[in-house]
């Protein structure tokens, strides 16, 4: 991801402008549009912090690389392992942070709780006070997770919110909303889809979407 490297001296922008993000989408055009007040502040804070010896350009570049490497695929691997390994699933539900580390994911100080979807219960995650998200496992949150609409409504009318995501749940299913108000972060362990008997964990992970781990969606069906 050459776009994100600080090659040297004071966090200089590299000369390589591929213009594409790690997900293959274009960046917003901030890089090439007129400098904004807040961009000036970012450059100023970064340069002051480097000049005062508080951080180095290399640390900034490494931190950006670390965040870019975190994605829903990490969580999908954890979920798929839990679907195929009952002992791991038990460890995940007991301590999701340790289970994630056991799979080799660098989640830093993240304190993660996994909540399991069953025939009776559907879990959904929100942060009404800010935008707490299991970013150290899944990467940065989607914009809607940080929106006023999602933050305000999910705790009061979760079924209507889920319907906007295309997920309609029967009244017989209890919806359990989790408001990430303090030091914990949450990941939903979705139910394993029907028709996936015999599939490998690698193949199953392809079915696990980001939204299924937040609770605003379900895993894909095989072949879908």
């Amino acid at each position, binding site marked *: 991801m050459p776009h994100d490297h600080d090659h040297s001296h004071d966090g200089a922008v590299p000369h390589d402008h591929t213009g594409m993000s790690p997900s293959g989408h274009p960046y917003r055009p901030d890089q090439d549009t007129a400098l904004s007040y807040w961009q000036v502040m970012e450059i100023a804070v970064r340069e002051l912090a480097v000049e005062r010896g508080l951080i180095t350009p290399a640390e900034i570049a490494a931190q950006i690389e670390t965040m870019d490497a975190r994605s829903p695929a990490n969580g999908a691997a954890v979920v798929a392992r839990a679907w195929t390994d009952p002992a791991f699933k038990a460890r995940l539900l007991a301590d999701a942070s340790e289970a994630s580390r056991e799979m080799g994911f660098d989640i830093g100080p993240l304190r993660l709780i996994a909540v399991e979807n069953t025939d009776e219960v559907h879990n959904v995650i929100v942060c009404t006070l800010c935008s707490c998200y299991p970013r150290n496992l899944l990467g940065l949150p989607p914009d809607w997770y940080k929106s006023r609409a999602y933050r305000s409504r999910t705790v009061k009318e979760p079924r209507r919110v889920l319907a906007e995501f295309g997920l309609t749940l029967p009244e017989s299913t*209890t919806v359990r909303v989790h408001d990430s108000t303090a*030091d914990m972060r949450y990941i939903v362990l979705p139910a394993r889809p029907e028709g996936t008997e015999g599939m490998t964990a690698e193949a199953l992970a392809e079915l696990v979407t980001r939204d299924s781990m937040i609770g605003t969606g379900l895993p894909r069906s095989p072949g879908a």
Partner: protein
Amino acid sequence: MAAPTVSEPQLPVRARVRVRSWAAPGHIRTPWYLRGREGRIERALGAFPNPEQLALRQPADPVPLYRVRFTMAEVWGKAAETPTDTLDAEIFAHWLEPLDAA
């Protein structure tokens, strides 16, 4: 308010609690919509530095943190979408009033 001094969780799982309906300004991690609502302890999470102090660069006391489960009927009353759906939130001990007799 005196600084919380108890740092060991005291409330057992399923204990009934009421969230304090305090309305002081400040950096507070207890959502407004839960204030005054009754729920049950889902689990104790251990003690964490008090965010109300952390936000102000003060040395922060460790305070027990609990996950509390509420029914939507309790939180929203007649406006509840499905009264039997539930909501879990993390609430610090000094915001919880135990309802069960000791």
